C-alpha cells in the first residue's frame, strides 16, 4: 500500500555498502532521514508526522536551528529527490486529513517549494507524467506545479544551475532539466488534455519563463559585478546580447543552430530590430564573424546560405512572400555589417550565387518577387563588387524599398550609425518642374513681396504631365490616311501625328475602319516605336482596342490566330491578350455610346452556343423607331443605359481560339515551358473574357471549356498562373447562369471544388489561397441556391 519509490537505496545491502564508506556526520543525515521515513510510513498520528517533517526542514537552512552546511549540502545532493518521491507516494486524501485546516498539505507542499528547486521541479514533472489519469494525485501535483511556477521557483531552478557551473557540472541532468523546462507546455498539454490549466499554455508559460530568465540574469549580473561598477549608460542591443551570450554561438552546437539557422532560415517571425541585433551580435566578434562570412567546410556561412536560399528558384516558388522578404532583409543587414575586405575574399563565390538568384527572381512572374531581386541585387552588387559598373533597376519606390535601403546602410562596428553610407543614394523623384529651368536671367524676383507672407503651401501644383509638345497639324484626316502614314511614311512627324489621331478617327468613322480593320490591326500589332513618342504603348494599344471594338469578329479572329503564330515577341503576345480583354470590356459595357450596335451577320459556325437568338427587343424597337416619327425625345437619354451585351455575338471569336493551342509548343513559344508569364496572362485573360461574357448565350460552353483548361493546368508551379486559373474559376461561377452550372457543369464543378479546397489550405502563395477561398464561397452560394429548390 505504500509505494516506496526508490527506497531500495536506503535498504538492505545498498545501505550497508554506502555506510562503510561514509564518515559519521554524513551517515547521521542518512539515519535521520531513514528514521523520518519510517515514522511517516508507519504512523497515523498527525502530530508526530508534523513534527518529523518540521524537523527535516532544518536541512533547508532557514529555521532557527539550521543543520551544518555540510549536512545541508548532503541532504540536497543525495537525499532530497528520493525523499520528495516518497512524499509524492504518501499523497492521499486520508493522509492529508490527518491534520486539520490543510496544515498537512501546506507542510507537504513546502518541501517542494522551499527545497532545491531543480530537483523539486524534476520530481514534480516526473510524478505528473507518472500519475494515473485522472487521479487525486495528478490533480494535487498539477496544482502544486502551478503554485511552483507562480511563486517564481523557475528562477530558483535556473539560478541553481548557474551556481553549479562553479562545481562539477552535471551535463546530463542539465540536459534533462532543460528539456523539461522547455517542453513543459507540451507535456502538460498531452497529460491533461482538456483539463489543462491556463498557466501551462505556451502563451502564458513562456512569457513567465522569460521574466524569470531576466530575474536570474539580473541576479547573475549583480553577483558578478563588483560593487563599484555601474551600468554603462547606453548599450546597443547587439552589445547586450554579446555580454549575455559571449561566444556561446561558436561553442555550443545548439546555440549555433538556433542563431545561424533556425532564426534565419526556418522561421521568419523575428522583428527587424531583433534580426538586426542577432546579426549585429554575430558580427561583433571576429570569431563569431567567421560564421557570417568565411570559406570553410565546417562552419555555416550565413551570408552565402542566405544568398543561396534567396536565389533558389524552388524557394522562390514555394516559400511565402513574407519569408522571402525576411531573407532579403537579412542579406542586406549582413552586408551592412561586413567590411569590404571580408567581402572581397570570397567575392567570386558570392557574386556567382547572387547572379544566379537575380536571374531566378527576375524570371518570376510576380512583381514583388522581382522587386526583391532588384533591390537586393543593386545593394549587394554595389557592396560585393564596388568597382564594377553599378547595377540599376527601375522599380517603384514605396515603404518596403525605403525600409530595405535603410537596412542596407553600412554600419561600421566601431562608430555609431551616424554617418550615412556612400552606397545609399535615394533617387528623388522631383522632376515635374521642368519648365522652371533655363532662365536667361535671375528667377522672377520676389523682392518686396516677401513681406506679404503669402505661403506657397496652399498653391500645390496639379499634375502637369499632359503638358507635352503639341504635335504638328500633319495628322491625317482619314483612317486610310493614318494607315498610309504608319506604314509607308518616312515623315516622322506625320507618323507620330497619325498615331495620335488614330483612335479618334476610328471611332468617328466606323464604316471606313471596317473596310481596313484587319490590315490596320496588323500594322498596329507590328508597329515599332520609331521615334521617342511619349506614351507610345498606350496610343498603340488604344488604337488596337478601337479597331477591335469597331469590327470585333474579323479583328479578334486575326489577333487570336496571331497569338499562337510564329515569330512574335512575348511582348506582342501579351499585347494581344490585353487588347482582347480591353475590347471585350468595352463591348460588354451596357449601353456604350448609345449608338446602334454594328453587327454583321452572325456566323453560326463560330458560335458554339448554337443558334444565336437575335435580341428581339432591340429588333422590335429598331423597327418601331424606323416607322415612327418623333418630335421630341425629351430627356430619354438620361435613363440608365440598358441594352444587350454586344459582346454576346462575338465572344466566341475572342475566347475559343485562345484555348486551342496552349499545349502545343512552337519553336519560339512554349506556354507550358519557359513562357509561363504569358501563360499566366492567358489564364487571366480567359478569366476576364469569361467574366465579361455574363448574360451571353455562349457563357455555358465557354465555362465548360475554361474549366477544362483550368483542370489541365491546376498543378502548375507558377503562382501567377495559378492565380489566373483561380480567378477564371470564379469568373465561370459568376457568369454562367446557375441553372446551367447545375445542369451542365456539375461534374466539373465538383472536381474543381476539391482542388479549390486543397489550394485554399495548402498553397504557398497567399493570393492563391485567398482566390481559392473566394471561389469556394461562390460555390457555397450556389449550393445555397440549390437547396431551397430541392428541399420542398
Amino acid at each position, binding site marked *: 500500500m505504500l509505494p516506496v519509490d526508490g527506497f531500495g537505496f536506503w535498504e538492505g545491502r545498498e545501505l550497508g555498502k554506502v555506510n562503510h564508506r561514509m564518515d559519521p556526520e554524513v551517515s547521521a543525515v542518512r539515519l535521520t532521514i531513514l528514521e523520518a521515513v519510517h515514522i511517516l510510513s508507519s504512523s497515523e498520528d498527525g502530530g508526530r508526522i508534523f513534527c518529523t517533517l518540521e524537523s527535516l526542514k532544518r536541512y533547508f537552512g532557514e529555521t532557527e536551528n539550521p543543520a551544518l552546511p555540510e549536512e545541508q549540502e548532503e541532504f540536497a545532493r543525495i537525499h532530497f529527490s528520493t525523499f520528495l518521491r516518497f512524499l509524492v507516494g504518501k499523497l492521499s486524501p486520508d493522509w492529508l486529513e490527518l491534520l486539520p485546516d490543510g496544515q498537512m498539505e501546506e507542510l507537504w507542499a513546502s518541501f517542494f517549494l522551499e527545497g532545491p528547486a531543480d530537483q523539486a521541479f524534476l520530481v514534480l514533472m516526473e510524478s505528473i507524467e507518472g500519475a494515473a489519469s485522472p487521479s487525486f494525485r495528478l490533480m494535487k501535483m498539477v496544482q502544486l506545479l502551478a503554485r511552483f511556477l507562480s511563486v517564481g521557483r523557475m528562477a530558483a531552478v535556473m539560478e541553481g544551475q548557474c551556481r553549479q557551473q562553479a562545481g562539477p557540472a552535471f551535463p546530463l541532468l542539465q540536459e534533462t532539466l532543460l528539456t523539461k523546462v522547455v517542453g513543459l507546455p507540451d507535456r502538460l498539454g498531452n497529460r491533461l488534455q482538456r483539463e489543462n490549466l491556463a498557466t501551462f499554455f505556451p502563451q502564458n508559460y513562456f512569457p513567465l519563463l522569460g521574466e524569470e530568465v531576466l530575474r536570474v540574469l539580473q541576479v547573475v549580473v549583480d553577483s558578478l559585478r563588483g560593487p563599484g561598477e555601474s551600468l554603462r549608460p547606453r548599450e546597443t542591443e547587439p552589445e547586450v546580447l554579446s555580454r549575455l551570450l559571449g561566444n556561446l554561438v561558436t561553442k555550443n552546437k545548439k546555440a549555433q543552430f538556433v542563431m545561424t539557422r533556425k532564426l534565419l532560415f526556418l522561421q521568419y517571425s523575428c522583428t527587424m530590430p531583433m534580426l538586426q541585433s542577432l546579426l549585429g551580435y554575430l558580427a561583433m566578434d571576429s570569431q563569431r564573424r567567421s560564421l557570417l562570412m568565411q570559406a570553410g567546410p565546417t562552419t555555416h556561412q550565413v551570408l552565402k546560405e542566405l544568398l543561396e536560399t534567396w536565389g533558389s528558384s524552388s524557394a522562390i516558388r514555394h516559400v511565402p512572400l513574407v519569408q522571402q522578404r525576411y531573407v532579403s532583409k537579412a542579406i542586406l543587414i549582413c552586408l551592412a555589417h561586413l567590411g569590404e575586405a571580408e567581402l572581397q575574399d570570397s567575392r567570386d563565390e558570392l557574386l556567382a550565387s547572387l547572379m544566379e538568384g537575380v536571374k531566378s527572381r527576375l524570371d518570376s512572374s510576380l512583381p514583388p518577387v522581382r522587386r526583391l531581386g532588384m533591390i537586393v541585387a543593386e545593394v549587394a552588387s554595389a557592396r560585393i563588387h564596388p568597382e564594377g559598373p553599378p547595377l540599376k533597376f527601375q522599380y517603384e*519606390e514605396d515603404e518596403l524599398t525605403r525600409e530595405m535601403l535603410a537596412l542596407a546602410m553600412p554600419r561600421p562596428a566601431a562608430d555609431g550609425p551616424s554617418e550615412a553610407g556612400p552606397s545609399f543614394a535615394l533617387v*528623388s*523623384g*522631383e*522632376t*515635374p*518642374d521642368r*519648365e*522652371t*529651368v*533655363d*532662365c*536667361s*536671367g*535671375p*528667377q*522672377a*524676383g*520676389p523682392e*518686396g*513681396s516677401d513681406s*506679404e507672407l*503669402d505661403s*506657397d503651401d*496652399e*498653391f*500645390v*501644383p*496639379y*499634375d*502637369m*504631365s*499632359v*503638358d*507635352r*509638345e*503639341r504635335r504638328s497639324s500633319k495628322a491625317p484626316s482619314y483612317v486610310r490616311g493614318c494607315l498610309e502614314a504608319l506604314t509607308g511614311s518616312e515623315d516622322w512627324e506625320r507618323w507620330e501625328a497619325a498615331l495620335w489621331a488614330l483612335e479618334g478617327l476610328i471611332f468617328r468613322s466606323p464604316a471606313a475602319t471596317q473596310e481596313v480593320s484587319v490590315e490596320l490591326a496588323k500594322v498596329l500589332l507590328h508597329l515599332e516605336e520609331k521615334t521617342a513618342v511619349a506614351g507610345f504603348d498606350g496610343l498603340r494599344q488604344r488604337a488596337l482596342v478601337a479597331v477591335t471594338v469597331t469590327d470585333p469578329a474579323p479583328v479578334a479572329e486575326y489577333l487570336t490566330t496571331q497569338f499562337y503564330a510564329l515569330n512574335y515577341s512575348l511582348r506582342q503576345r501579351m499585347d494581344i491578350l490585353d487588347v482582347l480583354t480591353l475590347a471585350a470590356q468595352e463591348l460588354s459595357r451596357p449601353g456604350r455610346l448609345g449608338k446602334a450596335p454594328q453587327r454583321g451577320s452572325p456566323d453560326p459556325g463560330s458560335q458554339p452556343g448554337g443558334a444565336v437568338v437575335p435580341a428581339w427587343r432591340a429588333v422590335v424597337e429598331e423597327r418601331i423607331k424606323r416607322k415612327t416619327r418623333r418630335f421630341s425625345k425629351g430627356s430619354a437619354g438620361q435613363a440608365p443605359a440598358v441594352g444587350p451585351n454586344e459582346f454576346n455575338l462575338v465572344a466566341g471569336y475572342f475566347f475559343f481560339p485562345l484555348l486551342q493551342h496552349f499545349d502545343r509548343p512552337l519553336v519560339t513559344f512554349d506556354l507550358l515551358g519557359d513562357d509561363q508569364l504569358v501563360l499566366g496572362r492567358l489564364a487571366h485573360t480567359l478569366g476576364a473574357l469569361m467574366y465579361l461574357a455574363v448574360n451571353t448565350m455562349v457563357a455555358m460552353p465557354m465555362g465548360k471549356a475554361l474549366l477544362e483548361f483550368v483542370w489541365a493546368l491546376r498543378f502548375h508551379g507558377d503562382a501567377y498562373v495559378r492565380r489566373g486559373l483561380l480567378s477564371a474559376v470564379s469568373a465561370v461561377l459568376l457568369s454562367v447562369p446557375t441553372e446551367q452550372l447545375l445542369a451542365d457543369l456539375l461534374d466539373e464543378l465538383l472536381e474543381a471544388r476539391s482542388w479549390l479546397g486543397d489550394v485554399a489550405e495548402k498553397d504557398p502563395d497567399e493570393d492563391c489561397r485567398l482566390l481559392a477561398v473566394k471561389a469556394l464561397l461562390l460555390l457555397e452560394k450556389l449550393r445555397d441556391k440549390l437547396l431551397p429548390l430541392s428541399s420542398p
Partner: protein
Amino acid sequence: MAAPRLPPPDPQFVLRGAQSAVHALHFCEGAQGQGRPLLLSGSLRGLVHIWSLQTRRVVATLDGHGGQCVTWLQTLPQGPQLLSQGRDLKLCVWDLAEGRNAVVDSVLLESVGFCRASVLAGGLQRWMLAVPGRGGDEVQILEMPSKTSVCSLKPEAQARLGMPMCLQLWQADTSPRPLLLAGYEDGSVALWDVSSRKVCSRVACHTEPVMGLDFDSQEARGVSGSAEKALAVWSLDEQQALQVRGTHVLTNPGIADVKIRPDRRILATAGWDHRVRVFHWRTMKPLAVLAFHSATVHCVAFAADGLLATGSGDQRISVWSLYPRT
C-alpha cells in the same frame, strides 16, 4: 519625396453657345445687383454674349460689329457701360442699364491690327482710352466720353518697334501722371509717360511680337507673353526703368493673352497650344496646365472673386475655380 500630384482639375462649368470662336472675355462685376457677376464674351462673328453665371445661360446678345471679330471688352465702373472693340474698326460704347442694350457712342479706329485697347477710368465721369493709332506704329490716347484725341504716342523712327500689339494704361498711386505700357511687334515692352509723350523706358523681352501683357502696379512687376516659347517677367524700378527679371520657358510656343488675378496670387495664360497655364505670380512656379480646349485659347479673364474664364477657338468658354481665396 514628391507626393503624387493631384490630377489636373476640371472646369467648374462650360458655357456653350457662342457659335463661333471666342476672342474676348470680361467679367462684369455686380451688375444688376446679382450675387454672381456676369460674363461677357466677344465672338469671331461679331456678337457679344452676356452670360449669367447663375443660370449659365445667355442673358443678352449684342450685335454691333457687323459680323467682324470682337477683340476686346471692358466695362466702366461708373454705370453699366460696356466698351467693345471690333475688327470692323469700331469701338462701341454700350448702355446696358435697366436691360437696355444699345450703342450709345462709337469711336472709329484707324488701325486694323490685333492690338486691344486699354482704358483708365478714375471713377469720374471722364476716362482715358488708349487705342492703336494711325500709321501702324502709333498709339492714340483719347479722352472720353468726349472722344477728344489727347495725343498720339509715336515711337522714334529709328527704334523700329513695329506695331503696338497690346496696351495697358495705368497710374501709380503716388503720381497723377498716367502711364502706358505697350508691347510691340519687335518683342519689346515700352513704358510711355502719356503726359510728356515720351518713352520712359523700353526693354526687349521677346524675339517675337508681344501678344499680351499684364502689370501688377503694387509690385511694379509685369508679365508678357509672345509668339515665342517663353513668358517674360519684368519690373519697373523707382527711376521708371524696365528690367527683365526672368523668362519662363514653355512647352509650346504662342501666348495669346495673359492675366494676373486681381488678388495678385496667380496668373493665367492663354496658349496657342490649346492649353491654359496657371502660375504662382510671386515665384512663377507652374501650378496647373488646363488641357480642356480643343483649339487655340484666345483669351483669359479673372473675376474679382477669383473665378477664371477661358475662351477658345473651339467655341467654348470654360470657367474654373482654382486655388480659391481663403
